[in-house]
């Protein structure tokens, strides 16, 4: 189980915008509801007591007006004081003479005993003069009757709020979804699962949001620019290596003719041989670059069905002399009977040949090469080329497929395009390739054919 903290960190680091918005909106609404619930009792109490005070004052004015109109005896009717209360003692009014010179005008909550019942009242006390006499007017309202509506009021307010919040939440979520939907579309159509080069043009997303329009258009432009640059590089490689062929051809044939001259002396012959070796290197580089650009231009039909084990045996056969020369042993551990479809046979042969050649080149004398295969859990077919060579250091690993990159310059390792060819074949034939290596122990090149190519 994940700890909450871990979960939060994960959330912080890798969350979709829509999820974040939903979380934020919901969170803010919950906070509002909580604040409201906390403040509601105080609020209701405040309103109720304000209103009670107000109504007590109104009643006071009414009483005084009546007294002014009808005279105080209308109430006192000869008695010293006057008192009246409703049947349930929820309200009472009292009038009594008061000491002169001590005017009182307050509203406060106090206890009164009415007919043996001690009750809490909100009481207005007000002194006034009438016909040169001072009277105290008391109007009281039981606290319980005042507060009786508090609870239902709070509840209703809460319900109304909750339903409003729920409605607004639904609207918010709906609209934010709608609002950011173009973003999702842009990501899906322009960025997710796009394989370089981006050939099939995804259409512009239909949106009225200017920012998204801009983002979408910019992405399309950027992808186009990348494509264009790549296209140019490819074209250049193809043209340059192609254009080199004729001059190389002339030089090679001239040297061959010179070497064929019977009057040639030994030092001159040796010089020509050296020149031919250099020229041959140039030829190999041009040929390899041309091959890479042809692979990248998809000039090889992918319509063959091949048996990889058979091809590997052929490649080994082709290169047996190199194994013998270095005293290497090769062990084939290919147990799976499988055919690979929708590939190019020549390219696959070249792939195996280059990997085997590589394993020989970087191997130690009397070392070994083990070629084994297995079926992955998802049905993919994997072949491992495991050598006992000098290995590749971790710093060099990311670059071994780069053109002209040579990882170990102490060895005579050729032009450094062998693995670039391997890489471009893999890309063109949808084969995955990975390398693990340990210096002075060896390397394992692993190629994986996806299940859809396996037959």
């Amino acid at each position, binding site marked *: 189980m994940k700890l909450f903290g871990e979960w939060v960190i994960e959330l912080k680091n890798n969350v979709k915008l829509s999820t974040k918005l939903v979380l934020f909106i919901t969170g803010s609404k919950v906070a509002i509801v909580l604040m409201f619930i906390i403040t509601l009792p105080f609020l209701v109490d405040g309103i109720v007591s304000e209103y009670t005070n107000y109504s007590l004052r109104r009643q006071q004015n009414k009483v005084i007006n009546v007294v002014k109109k009808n005279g105080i005896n209308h109430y006192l009717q000869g008695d010293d004081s006057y008192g009246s209360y409703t049947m349930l003692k929820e309200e009472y009014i009292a009038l009594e003479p008061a000491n002169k010179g001590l005017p009182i005008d307050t509203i406060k909550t106090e206890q009164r005993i009415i007919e043996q019942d001690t009750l809490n009242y909100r009481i207005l006390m007000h002194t006034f003069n009438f016909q040169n006499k001072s009277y105290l007017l008391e109007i009281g309202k039981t606290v319980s009757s005042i507060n009786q509506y508090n609870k239902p009021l709070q509840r209703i307010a809460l319900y109304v709020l909750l339903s409003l919040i729920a409605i607004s939440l639904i609207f918010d979520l709906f609209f934010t979804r709608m609002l950011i939907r173009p973003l999702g579309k842009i990501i899906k159509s322009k960025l997710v699962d796009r394989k370089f080069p981006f050939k099939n043009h995804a259409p512009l997303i239909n949106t009225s949001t200017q920012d998204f329009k801009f983002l979408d258009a910019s992405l399309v432009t950027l992808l186009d620019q990348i494509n264009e640059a790549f296209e140019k590089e490819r074209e250049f490689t193809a043209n340059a290596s*192609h254009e080199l*062929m*004729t001059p*190389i*051809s*002339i030089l*090679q*044939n*001239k040297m*061959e*003719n010179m*070497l*064929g001259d*019977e009057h040639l002396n*030994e030092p001159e*012959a*040796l010089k020509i*041989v050296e020149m*031919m*070796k250099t020229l*041959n*290197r140039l*030829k*190999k580089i041009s*040929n390899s670059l*041309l091959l890479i650009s*042809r692979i990248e231009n998809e*000039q*090889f039909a992918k319509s063959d069905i091949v048996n990889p084990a058979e091809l590997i045996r052929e490649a080994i056969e*082709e*290169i047996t*002399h*190199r194994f*013998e*020369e270095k005293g290497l042993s090769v062990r084939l551990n290919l147990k799976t009977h499988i055919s690979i479809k929708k590939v190019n046979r020549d390219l696959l042969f070249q792939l195996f*040949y280059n990997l085997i*050649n590589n394993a020989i*080149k970087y191997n130690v004398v009397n070392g070994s090469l083990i070629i084994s295969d297995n079926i992955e859990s998802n049905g993919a077919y994997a072949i491992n080329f495991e050598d006992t060579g000098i290995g590749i250091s971790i710093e060099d690993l990311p670059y071994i497929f780069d053109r002209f990159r040579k990882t170990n310059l102490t060895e*005579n*390792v*050729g*032009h450094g395009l062998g693995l670039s060819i391997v890489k471009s074949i893999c890309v063109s034939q949808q084969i995955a390739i990975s390398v693990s290596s340990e210096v002075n122990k060896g390397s394992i090149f692993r190629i994986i054919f996806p299940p859809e190519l396996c037959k």
Partner: protein
Amino acid sequence: MKVLIVEDEKTLAYEIEDFLKKAFYICDLAHGFKAGLEKMQINTYDFILLDLGLPDGDGLNLLPQAKKHNPDAAYIILTARGNLEDRIAGLDLGADDYLPKPFSLLELQSRMQAIARRKFNVKEELLPLGDFKLDLQKRLILLNEQQIELSRKEFDLLSYLFLHSNRVLTRMQLSEHIWGTFADDDYDSNYIDAHIKNIRKKLNAWAPTEFLETVRGVGYRIKK
């Protein structure tokens, strides 16, 4: 044998001519589409070496017309366009062989000889090589009717050296002939030497092999 070289790169055409003349071919040069066509209309050739990238037309278009005028000639396409489609198109149009540039002149001559054997039914007698006799058609080496076992690559090496007798062939040229595009780029490897050693060992058991010379620092030669 008469050869027409249709190649717009003059220097290259001269080198090919130079080489083939030494091998006793009679050469004619044409540096363009039209010039080539004209020559074909007037003369008949045994071999027509055709460059595809001509300045005034595509060699692939020249091929069908050329075949009208010279139906019996052997056509070899020489081109810097090494892609598969061109190769297939050329062979479909009736070319006998296809050499991508840059090619070795030794290879060109060897291909021409192979075509001659195949196409013109040139019945070569058994060719003498020291005390041995070579049968290039059946790919055999004999000593008084006795067949000597050589591996495929060993025979290829020996016959290539034989074809270019009196010429020193470098290890690189030999390995390129044997392994083609897969010839290795590390030149100081001694696998050609190993093969030669084997050939000598196998032949020496029957008769001396002084004809097969080692030329120090350069390569090997069969001396006739």
